[in-house]
């Protein structure tokens, strides 16, 4: 359990790179999947889940006010689900995608919260009552805690719930999810081809 909590902490730190700190792409799914895969004992599983996640999220771009689903959390959650809760890779991928989509709502709320607090913060900055560095540090800490809390919910509620029902999932669903998982790279590669000819999406 301590190892899993540590992995969640690493994942929360990597997720910061998506928007708030760095943007040097250590939060891209191929990297996050591999890192979390390595830490949880199956590097290649993490690499595959990371690449598949990246392919499926390729057409989301963080332009302007868009809050795309979190590829970092999707790949990280998928690896955790496969490694710690025994989900088959195709179910783990699905849960990861849903997790990434769900987090975009949390992200939107965090941005709204910052926007609500902005007039007060701007007033304090204009009167030298605080510094921009301090404001950013608090913002990063809030983001880190929010992501960590989100991951705790995933590993304490969603993981065990899926883990307990996975043995009872009918064979039909295994076939369906397995097939849709293995069309992901082909969907993604077609998208990749078009990304070199299309303009970035604004929304």
């Amino acid at each position, binding site marked *: 359990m301590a190892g899993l909590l540590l992995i969640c902490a690493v994942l929360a730190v990597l997720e910061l790179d998506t*928007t708030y*700190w*760095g*943007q*040097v*792409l*250590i939060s*891209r799914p*191929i*990297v996050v999947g*591999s890192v979390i895969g390595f830490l949880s004992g*199956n*590097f*290649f*599983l993490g*690499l595959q889940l990371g*690449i598949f996640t990246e*392919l*499926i*999220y*390729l*057409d989301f*771009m963080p*332009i*302007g*006010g868009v809050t795309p689903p979190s590829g970092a959390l999707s790949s990280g959650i998928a690896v955790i689900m496969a490694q710690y809760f025994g989900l088959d890779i195709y179910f783990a991928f699905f849960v990861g995608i849903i997790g990434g*989509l769900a987090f975009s709502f949390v992200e939107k709320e965090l*941005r709204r919260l*910052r*926007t609500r607090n*902005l007039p007060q913060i*701007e007033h304090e*900055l*204009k*009167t*030298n009552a605080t510094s*921009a560095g301090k*404001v*950013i540090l608090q913002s990063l800490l809030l983001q880190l805690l929010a992501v960590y809390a989100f991951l705790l919910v995933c590993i304490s509620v969603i993981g065990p719930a899926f883990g307990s029902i996975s043995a009872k999932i009918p064979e*039909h669903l295994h076939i*369906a*999810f*397995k097939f*849709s998982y293995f*069309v992901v*790279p*082909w*969907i993604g*590669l*077609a*998208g*990749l*081809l*078009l*990304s*070199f*000819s*299309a303009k*970035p*999406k604004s929304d």
Partner: protein
Amino acid sequence: MKNGIGIYLRMFLLQGFWNFARLQNIGMLYIMDPALKRIYEGRMPVYLRAKSRNLETFNSHPAMSGYSIGAMIKQEEKLAEKEGEELLEEEREWRIIRASTANTAASIGDRLFWATLKPLSLVFSFVILFVGQVDILQEEVSTSQSIIAALLALAGSLLIYNIPALIIKFKGLMDSYEGSEDNFYGLINLNWNRMIGFLKVLGQILVLFVIFYAIYIRFRKSSVDPESIARISLLAAFLILSIFMRKLNIPNIFLYLTATIVFSLAAFLA
């Protein structure tokens, strides 16, 4: 530029307080603050006025924001020497330069970094994996594959994006500080369209190689039987469907989710 490295390092926190109202304004103030303190040293009222000014809305691409920041520092140095009507006039100029450089740099950055270099770095990772005989698309993930090739692919995914991003970030800061209206604060020092065009052609060639090689390794051991033909047909259908969805501006994720639901229903009905 004084303390150029310090400002460069602060640029990594441009989006540290991203908000819907004024986007990157707090991050921009954080980057500009050391320069403002130096320029307005011992002049608290004008320093506070400069801080207020720098809290106005700002939005650019993180890797391209240097093209605004350098120009803004230069403009603050000019503002520090003005008073009265001249100051107001120079502030108007400051706003025009800030908006025009930020918008232009953002547009170039979105096309170069998000729409070209990021996918290109992923394609390079695929090429490295395939050259290293790592079959990452196989149904059972094998742990006995080349770890070196996998690590090189990971390094490639980071370096192909970050080397240009880090260089352009620094070059933008320096060029815009030294620049003027004549060279649009350094933004026309490079031929961006040519660079993007070349990278996109390279990307198209490589991704076609990846698609055909992936099809080859996926089906090289298959015989010509109805099952193989059905599988190839379905994958081809998804390739075409994905292109069609993209043309309609529908993200691929919805194609995956729809496929999952349709396959589940079909599996139950079969």
